[in-house]
């Protein structure tokens, strides 16, 4: 109690110095939390984009080896119609799966009659695809009543001069290696969100791709689970059931399949660690510096307290409490700054275009109570630890020297 009283009053007595330290901590705290709030929203946006926009769902099931060799020899990894029916039937027994979407990828040339260019496409069941995309991310829908109609990525549509209703032709090789071509009606254009795919992507009905590749099967089955289901946990639960049913398959999560998400997350996590390290050092040095000055100014006081019978650990606790108080108060000011700036920036509806993105995205910052609380606890502990060095020095000053200090 006496330690807290002395800590608070000495902080107030040296309020100008305390304020400078508090602001250093508060700004560092706000920097950490604003960045954490920003990348939280970025991760969330990328997650929604990967799961619902790219259509990766939670899990993708394919024959063992498909993820390594499937693009070279797709014919080896096709689930036949009967296998698909059996697999789908098994998956439908899982009540937490909301979408079961068989998929077949294809690449080839698309032409408007005058110009031909390459395309990559995903064939999927229109109903399943439309439910997969339901998350309000602005994607147009496939039309189950139009088996020869598909979506064309924006830049590809622009290159081909195609508009909704335009007739195109797709060319490719069947799985057996025969050349094949089909008419394609453009339903709508859509923005894939990434510059790398926006000039070459199609979304097509599964039946269309099956006809194009001359097969009745699919190479993958994508599963979307209910909200909040953890993909890794879902895989761990599903894998033994599929094995027991005789399916020799690999199951990948959306994180494993989304290179872009992983790369962005790794980069931002690295930047976050770098920022956190800087703030950590700034807080540590601010506290050490402030309390070292405080110790120097209060040598006689320390000697007096020791003469009056205070033990060394009592002296340590005075400065440790002072450090922790500075840390905690700095973090509280940091919370105010974080909430005010975070809310203000989000309300300002600023936009920016991230690298490799095809369109501007809103700059929004999430306020994360758990991160605020854990940063507060961590920086308070860091402050207390930082205080220990000058505090221990104070506690070991010889009483006679301290009393004679001017």
């Amino acid at each position, binding site marked *: 109690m*006496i330690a807290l009283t002395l800590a608070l009053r000495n902080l107030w007595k040296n309020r100008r110095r305390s304020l400078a330290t508090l602001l250093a901590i508060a700004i560092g705290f706000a920097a950490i939390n604003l960045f954490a709030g920003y990348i939280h929203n970025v991760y969330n946006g990328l997650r929604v984009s990967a799961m619902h926009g790219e259509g990766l769902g939670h899990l993708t099931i394919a024959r063992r080896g498909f993820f390594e060799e499937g693009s070279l020899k797709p014919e080896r990894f096709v689930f036949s119609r009967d296998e698909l029916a059996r697999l789908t039937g098994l998956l439908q027994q899982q009540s937490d799966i909301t979408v079961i979407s068989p998929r077949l990828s294809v690449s080839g040339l698309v032409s408007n009659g005058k110009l031909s260019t390459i395309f990559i496409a995903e064939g999927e069941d229109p109903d399943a695809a439309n439910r997969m995309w339901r998350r309000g991310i602005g994607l147009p829908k496939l039309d189950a009543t139009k088996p020869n109609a598909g979506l064309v990525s924006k830049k590809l549509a622009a290159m081909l001069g195609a508009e909704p209703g335009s007739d195109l032709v797709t060319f490719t090789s069947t799985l057996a290696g025969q050349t094949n071509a089909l008419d394609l009606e453009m339903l709508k254009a859509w923005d894939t969100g990434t510059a790398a795919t926006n000039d070459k992507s199609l979304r097509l009905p599964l039946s269309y791709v099956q006809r194009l590749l001359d097969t009745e099967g699919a190479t993958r089955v994508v599963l979307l689970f209910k909200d909040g289901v953890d993909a890794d946990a879902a895989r761990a639960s599903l894998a033994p059931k599929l094995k027991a049913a005789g399916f020799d398959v690999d199951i990948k999560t959306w994180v494993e399949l989304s290179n872009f998400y992983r790369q962005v997350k790794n980069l931002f996590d690295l930047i976050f660690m770098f920022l956190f390290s800087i703030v950590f050092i700034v807080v540590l040095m601010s506290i050490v510096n402030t309390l070292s000055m405080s110790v120097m100014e209060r040598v006689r*006081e320390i000697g007096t307290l020791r003469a009056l019978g205070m033990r060394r650990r009592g002296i340590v606790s005075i400065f440790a409490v002072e450090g922790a108080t500075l840390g905690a108060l700095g973090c509280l000011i940091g919370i105010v700054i974080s909430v005010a700036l975070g809310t203000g920036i989000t309300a300002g509806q600023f936009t920016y275009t991230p690298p490799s993105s095809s369109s501007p995205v809103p700059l929004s910052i999430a306020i994360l109570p758990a991160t605020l609380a854990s940063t507060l606890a961590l920086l308070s502990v860091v402050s207390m630890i930082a205080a220990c060095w000058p505090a221990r020095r104070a506690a070991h000053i010889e009483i006679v020297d301290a009393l004679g200090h001017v």
Partner: protein
Amino acid sequence: MHNTSSSQPPEPQKPLISLTAVSKHYQLGKIAVPALRNVDLDIERGAFVALWGPSGSGKSSLLNLIGLVDMPSSGRVRLDGQDTAGLDDAARAGLRNRAIGFVFQGFNLIPVLSALENVMLPLTIRGSTRKLARQAAEQRLAEVGLVDFSHHRPDQLSGGQRQRVAIARALVTDPLIVVADEPTANLDANTGHQVIALMRELNQKQGVTFLFSTHDPRLIDAVDKLIRLADGQIETAPEAPHATAALHTEGALS
């Protein structure tokens, strides 16, 4: 509230403070500078004793050893019969808190605490409840005539008032002895006189043992026993000055 020693029958054969062949050297670089040389000294309960001598004679060193804030280079320091040589830092801190009150030349009040909180401090350090500490501190502040200044901070008090607060703080634990280093050196003549009178009154009425170093002739006139130090040694045998011997014949002289 009285000195615990005054409520027990005195034991003449066991002095309150006993120094046996005590020496103290300070190391200045490679040179050992002697501050005290082979000092033997007993101080009885209830005494009002002054250490007198020129600067550098060893007064402060002797007070530091008796106040248990320093350790002798050799020799024994006994407090109430207890040899203090084997005590670790925490035990010495506890003993200082229980048995010794300090009054410093520069008052050494904690600037961010009020007069009352400063007086409560030794009891707070001891772990007494706030209520008990407050009651004891208020009583001691009343005894030094500062009850109306309880909530003043040290910088709102005069020098004399600060030294009175320091005296109240020294007494609040009912110590066996109050050690005072030049308690009137920073006070004007009139205030110094009042502080001397206060200490003497507490000594006579409550039997508190006082040991102080001083250059102040008024203080020397007031003591029961004067210890003269020169070059780290007690120069003459303890004696009662003429001026006070007649006045304090009933005092606890050694």
